[in-house]
């Protein structure tokens, strides 16, 4: 099995185009990167104790030997941390709304012979958003994008949790709470969902945690589908009730923002540009952050956008204004992922790279 392979470049049987491209890749040197400046920045980061990137948080503590970095127990940490975070958030949500529970309506396939839910049932909420987002989940997402999104999303989730299809409603609660406090890509839910969606494969680069068997995965999918259908019915009823309630109150309920890839792309694009030019054109960052907030008020990226607004103000020397605007921000997100950076910027008048 471990037969020595001749490099494609030296393999006369390989197509000339293939060898040409590989040769081009081998010969290509990075000429437009200033390695000396890069080393200086690295030393500055080391001396100032720059925080690790999110993706590497689980690595701290593993050794730096010439053995694998992304393997073994450190990976368990990577996977376990976001999953545990989601689980804790979900548990808190459920405990707050706990009522005498009717018999679980999750499909029979997800139960053990004793009638108690098996571990497969517990896995279902994670699998639902990855495999087939339920209406409840989508509604929670939509609600999270509205002004005061977190409140509305949580309400939606709670109402759904009180109806049928509890399993999916739990996932909606998790999704809603995550959407309200974090961002995709780095979010715990995103990671967990991605992890659930990954097809199990032996020797996966990022494996290290128990991988469900094919039959377990089937069970998870079945229970997820069943729970999703139940939640959809419950959600339809809940939505009808909500509309009726709003009509009785005579409130003109704003239409929820559509889940629209183009819109999301635009928002993230603006955010990316605002972030990118923070150190070179803070005025543009400020303008983009404010424009973004007026256009996508209350979206899941609000926290990050407001952080950029504050940092841009610091960068522009408008420290008083930054401090004034930072008060409500830090009160709302005292332990947010960007809050320490904002505090440091306000304290020193300088924005870290």
């Amino acid at each position: 099995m471990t037969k020595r392979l001749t490099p494609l470049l030296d393999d006369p049987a390989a197509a000339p185009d293939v060898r040409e491209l590989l040769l081009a890749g081998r010969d290509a040197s990075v000429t437009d990167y200033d390695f000396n400046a890069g080393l200086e920045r690295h030393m500055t980061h080391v001396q100032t104790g720059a925080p690790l990137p999110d993706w590497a948080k689980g690595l701290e503590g593993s050794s730096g030997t010439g053995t694998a970095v992304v393997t073994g127990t450190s990976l368990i940490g990577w996977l376990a941390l976001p999953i545990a975070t989601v689980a804790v958030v979900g548990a808190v949500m459920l405990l707050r709304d706990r009522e005498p529970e009717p018999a679980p309506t999750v499909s029979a396939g997800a139960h053990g012979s004793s009638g108690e839910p098996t571990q497969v049932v517990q896995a279902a909420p994670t699998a639902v958003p990855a495999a087939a987002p339920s209406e409840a989940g989508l509604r929670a997402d939509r609600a999270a994008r509205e002004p005061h999104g977190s409140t509305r999303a949580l309400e939606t989730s709670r109402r759904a949790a009180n109806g049928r299809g509890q399993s999916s409603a739990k996932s909606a609660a998790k999704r809603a709470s995550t959407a309200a406090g974090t961002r995709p890509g780095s979010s715990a839910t995103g990671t967990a969902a991605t992890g659930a969606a990954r097809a199990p494969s032996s020797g996966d680069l990022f494996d290290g945690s128990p991988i469900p068997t094919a039959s377990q995965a089937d069970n998870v999918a079945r229970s997820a589908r069943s729970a999703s259908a139940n939640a959809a019915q419950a959600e339809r009823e809940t939505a009808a009730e909500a509309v009726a309630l709003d009509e009785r109150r005579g409130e003109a309920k704003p239409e929820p923002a559509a889940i629209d890839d183009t819109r999301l792309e635009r928002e993230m694009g603006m955010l990316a540009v605002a972030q990118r030019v923070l150190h070179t054109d803070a005025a543009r960052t400020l303008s983009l952050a404010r424009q973004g907030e007026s256009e996508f008020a209350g979206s899941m990226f609000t926290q990050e956008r407001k952080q950029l607004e504050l940092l841009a103000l610091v960068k522009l020397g408008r420290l008083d204004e930054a401090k004034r605007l930072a008060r409500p921000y830090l009160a709302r997100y005292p332990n947010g992922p960007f809050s320490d950076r904002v505090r440091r910027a306000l304290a020193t008048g300088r924005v870290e790279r």
Partner: protein
Amino acid sequence: MPFGADGHLSSADLFRQFAPFVASFLLRMGVSRSDLDDVMQEVFLVAHRLGGYTPGPAKPTTYLASIAVRAATTHRRKHKVRSFVRANDELVSGAAGEGQSPEAAFEAQRRMRLLEAALDRLDDDKRAVFVMAEIHGETVVSIAAGLGIPVDTAYSRLRAARKLFQTAVAELTADGAVGISPRMQRVQP
């Protein structure tokens, strides 16, 4: 290669000696030019927090590559919806190849785009093994040690990646490899 007394290399040593390798590896893994410095800093900061490199089964290059794979994967996920920013980056950094004639520069650029497009057909696991083995000339044993995977798995990924890469190149150049084929124009950043 100047190692410490026990062969240990600090992150600064690693940067001095292997930054060009890491930069090239990250680009081949799909990191955009404009984000290269940020991702480089992340890789070496992680190497620093891990205590630098201590000799083991993996070479310093595959050790750094194992960190860089994670950084590049995260970066690519984030940037799937930021592709238009990347397009601008590529325009800005398209001035590489000083001293080359315009034709040679164009041809070099065409090849690199073709290479990127073909590599984009591979998933991250296969791409990492393929880039290390076929472009950076690392041995499969060292790659396996660096990534913490069995040697057989590394070979298996390399074989699969080769097939996919060769198929991709054949498809991408099918329209006559004089210019960038219509398909290429769709897939280029």
